[in-house]
């Protein structure tokens, strides 16, 4: 980790900046964009001229610019080197830049060490999470008063869209990116991902996607929110091209991330790591990865149709010229509903993984929990039209979708059963990660129960598209995913970085976040019932007191996040107190390794003869894990 400690002969800094790294990537990305934009301007055929001449903007140019920009960015990072060598017939290799000697530089270039990619993910996603959160603060600022506007109406909608896209696009990988990439090879004893270069590729592609989304503000933003409904998107400015580009890149990144994790878990489990001994977190990863692998391609396809509508003038989504606005709604939600479980399932995995450690008990009802996760995975493909209960699409099928949606609460209940059983008669230690897990349980309970109101078609008539549904999915995603995300951070980040996090600041962070989260999103249920639709720039003046309360509490959440940020900065960058190998007395394989974990993880592929929850068993079977020596 320490870049300063390395004192061996090295070329001067400016020399080291030349090569395949982030700097080159950014330069080539910009060059690629300009080339693409120029080409787009040249291939301005009569069939497309109407877009460029009258509107003063050319969607073909923008799309080609984004495409070649991303390609340039990836070439600059060195992603083209290996494919070119393979095309010339050179033999396959797996690893690139897997050496601790390269210090901090590893983090700014293509590196296939799964632990490096995980930390890259952590910081990269953290950055976009901060932007998304900032957007939320700005949205709440605008909603302080219904009659005066801080931002322009179109800028406000762009903020709403960027907040939603940022959170649903970038944060989707927030657990699988950092934590699954770091943990899965250690937990199943594989030492690496099945396709390490693909692993790095998903990260850098995601970063490119985030930048593409931010550039929407140079093209007038987009007014569609994260759901990108058509034909509103078709008529938008070039800012909507950024939305398409962003989600398409995210979709590709997610597909490959799920593909890679699934391939690793299926084929590369160490001897003795049977399916029934798999840590429950890995099961959470499996179910999420299945959804990512299968659902994300549909999103990409739907977006490509939208891109064709905007460039070559096909009519997929424009009624009257062959298309239908229903088509987008269907395709989007066929992806979109698995997507919300992509966001929820890793949280289940983390909660159930941490509970045994802090209850000092084996996971209760392991098979039930696994069945719950797989059940959610399966059912999530059959519920999408509950987003369309009042849309007039296939109204005859509403009873079916009501049933399938409510059926999902059975496997979700399994997760709660498993959690409740694990708590029972345990020796519960209320550490910071445990507090976040308990917070998850509380929030997700209310998220789930409010979901029953939305899944009930008669009740949904009022709550649909209102702040009620907005509060519901914030309870499940922010209360569910983000709380477990923080649980995982407090639990694993000391192990991942080798430095302690402050427990005191952690507790302040938890209690402020938990209280303020409920104070912010609880009243939104009421606002929804009182008739406030989503994504509005103004609202009825009798709703102002409640909105102001929500805004103030939302600022409190912002401050709470600053406490966390300060914890990270002071503990990991300034103080740097070394962490012991197994601070939580966990029996999970990754905690049997020294801190920091050596580059090659294990000297030998470990052999497992029990699941990772042998609590209360004397003598406890510990997996025979020999850490890779000498490189630490």
């Amino acid at each position, binding site marked *: 980790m320490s870049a300063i400690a390395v004192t061996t002969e090295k070329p001067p800094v400016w020399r080291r900046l030349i090569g395949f790294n982030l700097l080159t990537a950014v330069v080539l990305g910009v060059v690629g964009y300009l080339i693409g934009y120029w080409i787009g301007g040249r291939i301005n055929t009569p069939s497309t001229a109407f877009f460029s001449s009258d509107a003063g903007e050319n969607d073909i140019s923008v799309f080609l610019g984004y495409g070649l920009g991303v390609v340039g960015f990836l070439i600059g990072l060195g992603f083209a080197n290996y494919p070119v060598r393979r095309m010339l017939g050179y033999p396959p290799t797996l690893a690139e830049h897997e050496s601790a000697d390269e210090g901090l530089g590893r983090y700014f270039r293509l590196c296939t060490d799964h632990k490096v990619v995980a930390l890259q993910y952590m910081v990269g996603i953290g950055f976009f999470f901060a932007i998304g959160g900032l957007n939320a603060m700005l949205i709440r600022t605008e909603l302080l008063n219904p009659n005066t506007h801080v931002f322009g109406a179109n800028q406000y909608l762009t903020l709403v869209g960027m907040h939603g896209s940022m959170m649903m696009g970038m944060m989707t990988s927030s657990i699988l990116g950092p934590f699954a990439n770091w943990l899965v090879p250690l937990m199943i004893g594989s030492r690496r991902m099945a396709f390490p270069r693909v692993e790095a590729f998903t990260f850098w592609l995601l970063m490119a996607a985030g930048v593409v989304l931010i550039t929407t503000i140079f093209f007038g933003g987009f007014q569609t929110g994260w759901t990108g409904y058509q034909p509103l998107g078709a008529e938008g400015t070039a800012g909507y091209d950024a939305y398409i580009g962003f989600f398409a890149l995210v979709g590709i990144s997610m597909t490959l991330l799920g593909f890679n994790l699934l391939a690793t878990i299926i084929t590369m489990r160490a001897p003795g790591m049977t399916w029934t001994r798999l840590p429950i977190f890995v099961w959470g990863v499996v179910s999420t990865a299945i959804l990512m692998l299968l659902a994300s391609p549909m999103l990409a396809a739907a977006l490509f149709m939208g891109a064709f509508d905007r460039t070559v003038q096909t009519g997929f989504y424009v009624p009257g010229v062959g298309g239908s606005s229903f088509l987008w709604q269907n395709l989007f939600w066929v992806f979109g509903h698995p997507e919300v479980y992509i966001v929820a399932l890793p949280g289940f995995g983390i909660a159930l993984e941490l509970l045994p450690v802090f209850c000092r008990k084996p996971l209760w009802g392991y098979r039930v929990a696994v069945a719950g996760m797989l059940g959610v995975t399966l059912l999530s493909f059959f519920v999408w039209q509950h987003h369309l209960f009042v849309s007039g699409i296939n109204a*005859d099928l509403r009873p079916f979708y009501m049933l399938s949606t409510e059926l999902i609460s059975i496997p979700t209940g399994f997760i709660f059963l498993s959690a409740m059983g694990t708590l029972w008669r345990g020796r519960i230690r209320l550490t910071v990660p445990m507090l976040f897990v308990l917070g998850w349980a509380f929030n997700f309970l209310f998220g789930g129960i409010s979901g029953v109101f939305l899944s009930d078609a008669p009740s949904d008539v009022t709550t649909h598209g209102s702040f009620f549904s907005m509060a519901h999915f914030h309870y499940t995603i922010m209360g569910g995913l983000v709380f477990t995300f923080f649980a995982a951070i407090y639990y694993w980040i000391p192990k991942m970085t080798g430095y302690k996090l402050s427990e005191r600041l952690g507790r302040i962070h938890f209690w402020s976040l938990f209280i303020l989260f409920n104070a912010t999103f609880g009243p939104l249920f009421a606002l929804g019932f009182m008739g406030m639709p989503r994504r509005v720039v103004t609202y009825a003046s009798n709703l102002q007191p409640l909105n102001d309360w929500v805004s103030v509490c939302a600022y409190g959440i912002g401050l709470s996040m600053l406490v966390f940020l300060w914890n990270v900065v002071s503990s990991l960058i300034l103080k740097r107190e070394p962490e012991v190998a197994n601070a939580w007395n966990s029996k999970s394989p990754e905690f049997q390794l020294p801190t920091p974990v050596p580059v090659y993880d294990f000297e030998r592929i470990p052999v497992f003869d029990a699941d990772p929850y042998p609590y209360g068993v004397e003598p406890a079977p510990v997996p025979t894990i020999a850490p890779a020596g000498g490189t630490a």
Partner: protein
Amino acid sequence: MSEVNHFRRVLLIWLVASVIATPLVIFVLAPIVPPGNGTVESSGQVTDNTVLFGLSTPIALAVIVWFLYAVIAFRERDTGGAVLDGPPLRGDARIQMWWVVITTTIVLFLAGYGSVRLLSDGAGGGQGPNPIAAPSQAKDPALQVQVIAQQWQFTYRFPGYGGVETQHLYIPAHTTIEFNVTSLDVIHSFWAFQLGVKADANPGENNIAYVTTKQPLTFNIRCAELCGVWHGYMFDTGHVVTKAQFAAWIAVQRAQFAPATRSLPPYSKSYFPDPQRLGG
């Protein structure tokens, strides 16, 4: 520790809490939850919500009581730094089976109840061009009102009154109304809050929602689907008025909007105004 029957205690606490909280929720909270009792459909939704509230309160309490009790009763006290393990319980087939049975029963009941309520009168939701659930129109046929959404306002068309189009919405009391919701450009959603009506307005499609009005009432209309820059400002106030007032109002509208009515296209369930309208 093991002398105390923890399970019995949790059960007791839950029973007491449920007995206190559930009636409070059903009789105090649920009736004041909107959309109120202005129409048959909105009362139906209030009833529906009451059932959901009544059912979910004991369930939520069960989980919360269990978690709180466990965290308080089983919290590790001072062990002098030693890390002690709890009992290695790994599951119980009977409990798991009962859990499945109970949750499945609740879910099936909810789905069945919801379907019955939905199919009785459509619950005010948009049902597409061929509704499967409509309120009884035995006494007199429903009044057709077409809601035309466009960026960014709703207008209303009355096919039974010479196809006149109006800027605001007045509907008669004690009447079944058939809203035919459509859009001229992008997706909107017609949300008549106090009526308990919500139906998406899709370009080129017809979406029917029924409501049976009761007493005269003033209601808010809002767009509930993001439709562009003025989505937040796409609202209006509608009125349920007596039948006589309605007749007078519609006569005034027909006279006032006679010039515009002449240029309107013939009444249709959906419109395709030269879709590209590229402008210039």
